């Protein structure tokens, strides 16, 4: 059999391209596909499952397309029969109204249940008490307040592994989206409003998080590190921060909230009492009526 040179070249280019891509991808970290916590893990499984169901329609489309284009092109000597007036088939058309409908029905049920199961506000059920962290997006950094530990940190959030972490989030800047892909999906942070998110990590490790919603000039620098550590390490970290850091008084906060980009990791002790609530309330009218609306956060 004579091999067409053109196709051989295309084939070789494709193969080498795929090989290089494969080597590259096996060496880099792909957070969404390598979940390290129960929430991100369920989200990943859902992603794989839905993709598999969709391939039931997509693969026939690709095969049919390839077959039809090969078989019925005008210059094919073995071209199939030409039927110019064939325009309707109740049976066939019914088939592709019904089969995708059934598949979408299945996906819908999965999706409805998943939407409840993976609601970011839904607590992760374990015997351990959740660690509460209040996250605030600022121009252009993340502030994490630990109301029960009486510490705060910027652009770094640390928590013990295998413990649910309960985030309360807001913004003292334009809207941002909190995203820590290896542990959980996103939730918006909005000024004057509070959102919540539960996540947990199964392993010890450092994970990269960032804002996923454009918030101004320093937006690209809104990257933070999430450290999942052993309980003991966490406790000694809290002690260290408490004793060795500046206080996050109201005046220190006012300095902190001023726009700055690529701010290095910073720790604070003793955040001002009710700071998180005050940040939300400052956007409320009239000022100060929002405190009972704090979602039962002790602060």
């Amino acid at each position, binding site marked *: 059999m004579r091999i067409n040179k053109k196709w051989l070249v295309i084939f070789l280019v494709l193969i080498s391209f795929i090989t290089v891509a494969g080597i590259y991808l096996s060496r880099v970290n792909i957070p969404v596909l390598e979940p390290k916590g129960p929430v991100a893990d369920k989200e990943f499984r859902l992603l794989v499952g839905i993709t598999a169901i969709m391939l039931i329609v997509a693969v026939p489309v690709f095969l049919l397309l390839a077959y039809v284009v090969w078989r019925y092109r005008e210059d094919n000597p073995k071209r199939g029969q030409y039927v*110019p007036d064939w325009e309707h088939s109740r049976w066939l058309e019914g088939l592709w109204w019904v089969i*995708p409908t059934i598949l979408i029905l299945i996906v819908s049920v999965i999706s409805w249940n998943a939407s409840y199961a993976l609601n970011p506000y839904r607590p992760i059920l374990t015997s351990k008490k959740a660690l509460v962290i209040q996250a605030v997006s600022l121009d252009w950094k993340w502030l994490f307040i630990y109301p029960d530990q009486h510490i705060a940190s910027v652009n770094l959030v640390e928590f013990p592994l295998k413990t649910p972490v309960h985030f309360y989030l807001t913004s003292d800047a334009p809207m941002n989206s909190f995203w820590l892909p290896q542990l959980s999906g996103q939730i*918006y942070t909005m000024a004057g409003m509070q959102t919540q998110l539960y996540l947990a990590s199964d392993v010890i490790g450092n994970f990269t998080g960032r804002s*996923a919603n454009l918030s101004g000039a320093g937006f690209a620098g809104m990257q933070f590190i999430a450290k999942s550590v052993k309980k003991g390490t966490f406790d000694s970290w809290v002690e260290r921060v408490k004793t060795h850091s500046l206080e996050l008084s109201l005046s220190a906060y006012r300095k902190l909230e001023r726009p700055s980009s690529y701010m290095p990791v910073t720790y604070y002790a003793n955040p001002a009492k009710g700071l998180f609530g005050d940040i939300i309330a400052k956007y409320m009218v009239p000022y100060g009526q929002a405190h009972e609306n704090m979602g039962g956060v002790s602060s």
Partner: protein
Amino acid sequence: MMIHHLSTTFGSLLGRLSLKWLPHDPITAFGAILLAAVPIGAALLITYTKRWRWLYREWLTTQDPKRIGIMYIIVAILMGLRGLADVILIRTQQALSSGSNHGILTASHFQQIISAHGTIMIFFVAMGLMFGIINLIVPLQIGARDVAFPFLNATGFWLFFAGMALINVSLIIGDFSATGWLAYPPLSELKYSPTVGVDYWIWSLEIAGIGSLLAGINFVVTIIKKRVKGMSLMKMPLFCWSVLGSMSLVIFAFPILTVTLTLLALDRTIGTHFFTAGYGGNMMMYVNLIWAWGHPEVYILVLPAFGIYSEVAAVFSRKKLFGYASMVWAIWAIVILSFIVWLHHFFTMGAGSDVNAFFGIMTMIIAVPTGVKLFNWLFTMYKGKLNMKTPLYWLIAFVVVFTIGGMAGVLMAVPPVDFQLHNSLFLVAHFHMMIVSGVLFGYFAGITYWYPKFLGFKLNERLGRYAFWSWLVGFLLAFVPLYILGFMGATRRLDHYSSSLGWQPLFVVAAIGVVFIIAGVIFQILQLIVSIWQRNGELKAGHDPWDGRTLEWSLPTPIPVYNFARLPEVSTRDAYWEAKKTNYIDDRPYEPILIPKNSPLGLVIAAGAFIFGFAVVWHIWWLAVLGLAVSIFGLIYRSMDEHTEYKLSAAEVKQMDQMRFQEIKS
């Protein structure tokens, strides 16, 4: 506060405008000079060739949808080149800006460019190509001599032009919005975006949007009222069905855009608090409203392209369109569903599980009618005789790319999966796959297909093929890496990223993809030039070069101003295809035809709107009043005019028609 605001801005005769707003950095200055050179160069050329009178009479004042359509397409192509220049800067920046290297652009400049890219590509390229092709084709396909409201239609075009002009002026004086193509508040509010950028964005879209609404009204009425005798709705060419769906969406969706932009403009200009953070403003109201327009907008663009694919599939398979009725139902299912899915753009807002699940499921259901359409196109080709020309290539590439992009879409319709993909480059890859294959490829196919009908010669096939392959390879290289980058945690609109993340190689591949796309565009430009060169040779086309099926191919080329000397009579779908089977000789008598007179008032109204927009952007209040007065004067003057048409007598029509008939014979 409001009064204070007004008194300070009334203070200066030039408002906020001053020379310090001319570009300072070399990249913007170069762009501005290049941009200014286009109209200045064109004006010089017209003066040199003494063509002003011709331009005024034949183009600027025309009411003929065939000419308006061509003007839309020219504007869209020029804007496409500007959008491509933005792409080059974006891809260069992201390929370089890793670790200690911060690339060639500042963050704010980069954000202005991504905002301009999105805005221009959607409003002035995709919309322009769409309205262009609709203007050219719809009246011909329904056997009409004109659109229902020719003046409204012309005004719509000139408002589109005014919006386009305003967005380009922002490159020369002032700055542009740096808040993404949909300018979410509170970032787009005065507090965080105090310069004129967001105002340029608002007024450019406000003006162009009203133009789109006018055009939408015109085409809905045209299709409903102006069909030729015998063409019941279910005998219309499918392109017309898709346009009817799309234009109905325009009528319902664009007023939402107009109101939303107005409210944001009020916030920014007179100090209201509709969407501000604080003072009772609700930013998420804006996000809801803008997507209540924005999601239908996607279908506004894609439906006419679906219509083109339906025409191309039938003509180039030399076979009837498969499942016509299914196709019509699918269009209307999409039209209705497109209004109840908007919340899927912000599942991450923190709405409840049931709200998210509802909108997710509505979104997935759209996959059903879309899938039906894909299968029907495949079965149109099945048992056909495929004439493998470029339009069919675009269709085949579309089926592949759109299916992949559509799968990504269903994936993101599942709220918890979307939590991981929202605003990531996965999303960017998804919607480019949908819009580039579903819209741009469709309009490429349509332009190649209908080109000979208007210009009398085909486009060079070989160069078209080169353009196709460059585009397809470039497109896949540019966007497949973005899917992976999304999985890697890369979000959209990043002007810089840490080198430790390992993203850079993929950004470099995406940049290489753009090099291929540029090659594709160069081939397309070459194709145009070479085809003009070869127009009297093998590319010369008669009035029906593709063995067409619908009424436009029954007309002589070039098409006379009245389209049909004698209105055809239609009794089936594919009316011209059926007519060619019989040897019918039309010997009915000619009748007089009314033709709309040229009018400069559409241009005047749009010029007033442009002046108004520019003045409001810069707070030059006396000029804003003047601009508005010009527009209102134009409207009133036009409504007083009772002599808007002239009559061609039956004898004149007969003479013109027979002259053309002889030209075809000889």
